[in-house]
Protein backbone atom coordinates (compact mmCIF):
# COMPACT_ATOMS: atom_id res chain seq x y z
CA UNK A 1 0.00 0.00 0.00
CA UNK A 2 2.80 2.38 0.83
CA UNK A 3 4.02 2.20 -2.80
CA UNK A 4 0.57 3.10 -4.08
CA UNK A 5 0.71 6.16 -1.87
CA UNK A 6 4.17 7.11 -3.12
CA UNK A 7 3.22 6.66 -6.76
CA UNK A 8 0.06 8.70 -6.27
CA UNK A 9 1.77 11.63 -4.57
CA UNK A 10 4.80 11.37 -6.85
CA UNK A 11 2.58 11.62 -9.93
CA UNK A 12 0.58 14.43 -8.37
CA UNK A 13 3.62 16.56 -7.59
CA UNK A 14 5.24 15.89 -10.96
CA UNK A 15 2.04 17.14 -12.62
CA UNK A 16 1.96 20.22 -10.39
CA UNK A 17 5.62 20.96 -11.14
CA UNK A 18 5.03 20.47 -14.88
CA UNK A 19 2.04 22.79 -14.76
CA UNK A 20 4.04 25.57 -13.12
CA UNK A 21 7.05 24.99 -15.34
CA UNK A 22 4.85 25.34 -18.40
CA UNK A 23 2.74 28.27 -17.22
CA UNK A 24 5.04 30.57 -15.25
CA UNK A 25 7.13 33.12 -17.14
CA UNK A 26 10.79 32.39 -17.80
CA UNK A 27 13.49 34.67 -19.13
CA UNK A 28 15.92 33.64 -21.84
CA UNK A 29 18.91 35.73 -22.80
CA UNK A 30 19.29 35.37 -26.53
CA UNK A 31 20.14 36.92 -29.88
CA UNK A 32 17.22 37.16 -32.30
CA UNK A 33 18.32 36.06 -35.75
CA UNK A 34 15.09 36.06 -37.70
CA UNK A 35 11.36 36.51 -37.46
CA UNK A 36 8.90 34.86 -39.79
CA UNK A 37 5.41 33.55 -40.03
CA UNK A 38 4.26 30.20 -41.27
CA UNK A 39 1.00 28.42 -41.59
CA UNK A 40 0.36 25.81 -38.92
CA UNK A 41 -2.12 22.97 -39.26
CA UNK A 42 -2.91 22.02 -35.71
CA UNK A 43 -2.99 18.30 -35.02
CA UNK A 44 -2.46 16.27 -31.90
CA UNK A 45 -0.25 19.06 -30.54
CA UNK A 46 -3.11 21.56 -30.72
CA UNK A 47 -3.39 22.05 -26.95
CA UNK A 48 0.13 23.50 -27.00
CA UNK A 49 -0.97 26.31 -29.32
CA UNK A 50 -3.07 29.33 -28.49
CA UNK A 51 -6.49 30.04 -29.87
CA UNK A 52 -7.02 32.42 -32.75
CA UNK A 53 -5.92 36.01 -32.11
CA UNK A 54 -8.36 38.19 -30.17
CA UNK A 55 -11.12 39.24 -32.53
CA UNK A 56 -10.32 36.70 -35.23
CA UNK A 57 -12.59 33.84 -36.21
CA UNK A 58 -12.23 30.93 -33.83
CA UNK A 59 -13.60 28.38 -36.30
CA UNK A 60 -10.53 27.94 -38.52
CA UNK A 61 -8.50 24.72 -38.51
CA UNK A 62 -5.24 26.39 -39.50
CA UNK A 63 -3.73 29.84 -39.49
CA UNK A 64 -0.50 31.74 -39.86
CA UNK A 65 1.58 31.97 -36.71
CA UNK A 66 4.44 34.38 -36.00
CA UNK A 67 7.75 32.84 -35.00
CA UNK A 68 10.93 34.31 -33.53
CA UNK A 69 14.22 32.50 -34.14
CA UNK A 70 16.93 33.04 -31.60
CA UNK A 71 20.25 31.75 -30.35
CA UNK A 72 20.72 31.55 -26.61
CA UNK A 73 23.93 32.29 -24.76
CA UNK A 74 25.06 28.67 -25.12
CA UNK A 75 24.88 29.15 -28.91
CA UNK A 76 22.02 26.73 -29.27
CA UNK A 77 18.92 27.67 -31.23
CA UNK A 78 15.55 28.32 -29.67
CA UNK A 79 12.43 29.05 -31.64
CA UNK A 80 9.55 30.92 -30.06
CA UNK A 81 6.03 31.19 -31.33
CA UNK A 82 4.39 34.56 -30.93
CA UNK A 83 0.67 34.24 -30.38
CA UNK A 84 -2.06 36.11 -28.53
CA UNK A 85 -3.16 34.44 -25.33
CA UNK A 86 -6.19 36.73 -25.38
CA UNK A 87 -8.65 36.26 -22.55
CA UNK A 88 -7.83 32.57 -22.18
CA UNK A 89 -5.33 30.45 -20.31
CA UNK A 90 -2.57 31.11 -19.31
CA UNK A 91 -3.60 34.54 -17.99
CA UNK A 92 -0.98 36.73 -19.63
CA UNK A 93 -3.70 38.72 -21.44
CA UNK A 94 -1.38 39.20 -24.40
CA UNK A 95 -2.94 41.02 -27.34
CA UNK A 96 0.08 42.80 -28.80
CA UNK A 97 1.43 39.93 -30.87
CA UNK A 98 2.01 42.03 -33.99
CA UNK A 99 3.75 44.77 -31.99
CA UNK A 100 6.00 42.19 -30.37
CA UNK A 101 6.86 40.80 -33.79
CA UNK A 102 7.86 44.29 -34.92
CA UNK A 103 10.02 44.80 -31.82
CA UNK A 104 11.67 41.41 -32.27
CA UNK A 105 12.39 42.10 -35.95
CA UNK A 106 13.96 45.41 -34.95
CA UNK A 107 16.40 43.66 -32.60
CA UNK A 108 17.80 41.12 -35.07
CA UNK A 109 21.49 40.46 -34.57
CA UNK A 110 23.35 37.74 -36.50
CA UNK A 111 26.49 35.91 -35.50
CA UNK A 112 28.49 38.01 -37.95
CA UNK A 113 27.51 41.28 -36.26
CA UNK A 114 30.42 43.19 -34.74
CA UNK A 115 28.40 44.20 -31.70
CA UNK A 116 25.88 41.52 -30.91
CA UNK A 117 22.52 42.81 -29.66
CA UNK A 118 21.41 40.66 -26.75
CA UNK A 119 17.82 40.58 -25.59
CA UNK A 120 15.82 39.10 -22.76
CA UNK A 121 12.89 37.12 -24.07
CA UNK A 122 10.13 36.54 -21.56
CA UNK A 123 8.16 33.44 -22.47
CA UNK A 124 6.17 30.56 -21.14
CA UNK A 125 5.81 27.03 -22.49
CA UNK A 126 8.08 24.32 -23.75
CA UNK A 127 10.07 23.56 -26.85
CA UNK A 128 9.67 19.97 -27.98
CA UNK A 129 10.97 18.85 -31.35
CA UNK A 130 9.08 15.54 -31.37
CA UNK A 131 5.71 17.22 -31.03
CA UNK A 132 6.57 20.49 -32.78
CA UNK A 133 5.66 22.68 -29.86
CA UNK A 134 7.19 26.06 -29.10
CA UNK A 135 7.31 28.38 -26.12
CA UNK A 136 5.19 31.50 -26.54
CA UNK A 137 7.15 34.76 -26.34
CA UNK A 138 5.53 37.43 -24.14
CA UNK A 139 7.95 40.32 -24.48
CA UNK A 140 11.45 41.21 -25.64
CA UNK A 141 13.76 43.74 -24.06
CA UNK A 142 17.20 44.79 -25.23
CA UNK A 143 20.01 44.31 -22.72
CA UNK A 144 23.67 45.36 -22.69
CA UNK A 145 25.26 41.95 -22.71
CA UNK A 146 24.70 38.21 -22.36
CA UNK A 147 25.55 38.16 -18.65
CA UNK A 148 22.71 40.22 -17.14
CA UNK A 149 21.27 38.94 -13.90
CA UNK A 150 17.54 38.32 -13.81
CA UNK A 151 15.68 37.71 -10.56
CA UNK A 152 12.28 36.08 -11.20
CA UNK A 153 10.33 38.01 -8.55
CA UNK A 154 6.93 37.02 -9.84
CA UNK A 155 7.77 33.32 -9.76
CA UNK A 156 9.21 33.65 -6.26
CA UNK A 157 6.01 35.33 -5.04
CA UNK A 158 3.65 32.89 -6.77
CA UNK A 159 5.51 29.76 -5.67
CA UNK A 160 5.82 31.05 -2.10
CA UNK A 161 2.09 31.72 -1.95
CA UNK A 162 1.39 28.28 -3.42
CA UNK A 163 3.67 26.61 -0.85
CA UNK A 164 1.89 28.51 1.93
CA UNK A 165 -1.47 27.37 0.57
CA UNK A 166 -0.37 23.71 0.42
CA UNK A 167 1.04 23.91 3.92
CA UNK A 168 -2.21 25.43 5.20
CA UNK A 169 -4.33 22.73 3.59
CA UNK A 170 -2.03 20.00 4.89
CA UNK A 171 -2.06 21.33 8.45
CA UNK A 172 -5.86 21.58 8.46
CA UNK A 173 -6.29 18.14 6.94
CA UNK A 174 -4.00 16.57 9.56
CA UNK A 175 -5.92 18.30 12.33
CA UNK A 176 -9.26 17.21 10.86
CA UNK A 177 -8.01 13.65 10.58
CA UNK A 178 -6.68 13.56 14.14
CA UNK A 179 -9.84 15.05 15.63
CA UNK A 180 -12.58 13.55 13.48
CA UNK A 181 -11.45 10.46 11.56
CA UNK A 182 -8.95 8.71 13.84
CA UNK A 183 -11.41 8.49 16.79
CA UNK A 184 -14.02 6.87 14.51
CA UNK A 185 -11.50 4.35 13.21
CA UNK A 186 -10.35 3.66 16.76
CA UNK A 187 -13.94 3.09 17.87
CA UNK A 188 -14.62 0.74 15.01
CA UNK A 189 -11.43 -1.28 15.33
CA UNK A 190 -11.58 -1.41 19.13
CA UNK A 191 -10.59 -4.85 20.36
CA UNK A 192 -9.09 -6.01 17.04
CA UNK A 193 -5.77 -6.52 18.79
Amino acid at each position, binding site marked *: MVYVKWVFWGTFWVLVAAFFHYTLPQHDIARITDTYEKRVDFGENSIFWS*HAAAGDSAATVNRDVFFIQAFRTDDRPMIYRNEDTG*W*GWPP*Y*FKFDTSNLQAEAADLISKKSATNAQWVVIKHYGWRNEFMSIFPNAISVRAVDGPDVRIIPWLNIVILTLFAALCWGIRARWKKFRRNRIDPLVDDYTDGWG
Partner: protein
Amino acid sequence: MLALLRLMVFGFLFLSVIYVALSLYSRSVRSAKLRQQWEDDGRPGERDAFVAAGLKEYDGSVRRKLILLVYIVPIAVMSTIIYLTNFN
Protein backbone atom coordinates in the same frame (compact mmCIF):
# COMPACT_ATOMS: atom_id res chain seq x y z
CA MET B 1 -15.41 39.32 -27.73
CA LEU B 2 -17.00 35.96 -27.04
CA ALA B 3 -13.87 34.89 -25.14
CA LEU B 4 -14.06 38.02 -22.98
CA LEU B 5 -17.73 37.37 -22.29
CA ARG B 6 -16.97 33.79 -21.32
CA LEU B 7 -14.18 34.88 -19.00
CA MET B 8 -16.43 37.48 -17.38
CA VAL B 9 -19.38 35.12 -16.89
CA PHE B 10 -17.34 32.24 -15.48
CA GLY B 11 -15.09 34.56 -13.51
CA PHE B 12 -18.12 36.26 -11.98
CA LEU B 13 -19.71 32.92 -11.07
CA PHE B 14 -16.46 31.62 -9.56
CA LEU B 15 -15.85 34.78 -7.54
CA SER B 16 -19.49 34.83 -6.43
CA VAL B 17 -19.11 31.34 -4.97
CA ILE B 18 -16.08 32.57 -3.02
CA TYR B 19 -17.92 35.73 -1.99
CA VAL B 20 -20.98 33.88 -0.69
CA ALA B 21 -18.89 31.24 1.13
CA LEU B 22 -16.67 33.90 2.70
CA SER B 23 -19.69 36.01 3.74
CA LEU B 24 -21.38 33.06 5.45
CA TYR B 25 -18.14 32.07 7.16
CA SER B 26 -17.43 35.61 8.33
CA ARG B 27 -20.97 35.96 9.68
CA SER B 28 -20.73 32.68 11.59
CA VAL B 29 -17.39 33.74 13.10
CA ARG B 30 -18.96 37.05 14.09
CA SER B 31 -21.95 35.41 15.78
CA ALA B 32 -19.67 32.97 17.66
CA LYS B 33 -17.65 35.94 18.90
CA LEU B 34 -20.83 37.73 19.95
CA ARG B 35 -22.00 34.70 21.94
CA GLN B 36 -18.61 34.60 23.63
CA GLN B 37 -18.82 38.30 24.37
CA TRP B 38 -22.29 37.83 25.84
CA GLU B 39 -20.85 35.19 28.21
CA ASP B 40 -17.92 37.43 29.14
CA ASP B 41 -20.19 40.44 29.77
CA GLY B 42 -22.05 38.48 32.42
CA ARG B 43 -25.04 37.43 30.27
CA PRO B 44 -26.83 40.78 29.87
CA GLY B 45 -30.45 40.06 28.89
CA GLU B 46 -31.60 37.70 26.14
CA ARG B 47 -28.69 35.98 24.28
CA ASP B 48 -30.43 35.81 20.88
CA ALA B 49 -31.36 39.49 21.06
CA PHE B 50 -27.76 40.40 21.95
CA VAL B 51 -26.40 38.38 19.03
CA ALA B 52 -29.04 39.75 16.63
CA ALA B 53 -28.20 43.34 17.61
CA GLY B 54 -24.47 42.64 17.16
CA LEU B 55 -25.03 41.07 13.73
CA LYS B 56 -27.15 44.03 12.67
CA GLU B 57 -24.25 46.30 13.55
CA TYR B 58 -21.92 43.98 11.64
CA ASP B 59 -24.15 44.18 8.53
CA GLY B 60 -23.43 47.87 8.22
CA SER B 61 -19.73 47.65 9.07
CA VAL B 62 -16.68 48.33 6.92
CA ARG B 63 -15.36 44.89 7.84
CA ARG B 64 -18.21 43.24 5.97
CA LYS B 65 -17.76 45.48 2.93
CA LEU B 66 -14.11 44.44 2.79
CA ILE B 67 -15.32 41.06 1.49
CA LEU B 68 -16.09 42.91 -1.75
CA LEU B 69 -12.32 42.83 -2.29
CA VAL B 70 -12.96 39.29 -3.55
CA TYR B 71 -14.23 40.98 -6.74
CA ILE B 72 -11.99 44.03 -6.75
CA VAL B 73 -8.57 42.39 -6.29
CA PRO B 74 -8.79 39.97 -9.26
CA ILE B 75 -10.07 42.75 -11.54
CA ALA B 76 -7.25 45.04 -10.42
CA VAL B 77 -4.66 42.27 -10.94
CA MET B 78 -6.07 41.53 -14.38
CA SER B 79 -5.99 45.19 -15.39
CA THR B 80 -2.41 45.47 -14.17
CA ILE B 81 -1.34 42.41 -16.15
CA ILE B 82 -3.06 43.71 -19.28
CA TYR B 83 -1.26 47.03 -18.92
CA LEU B 84 2.15 45.48 -18.21
CA THR B 85 1.93 42.92 -21.00
CA ASN B 86 0.61 45.11 -23.77
CA PHE B 87 1.38 48.76 -23.07
CA ASN B 88 4.61 48.77 -21.12
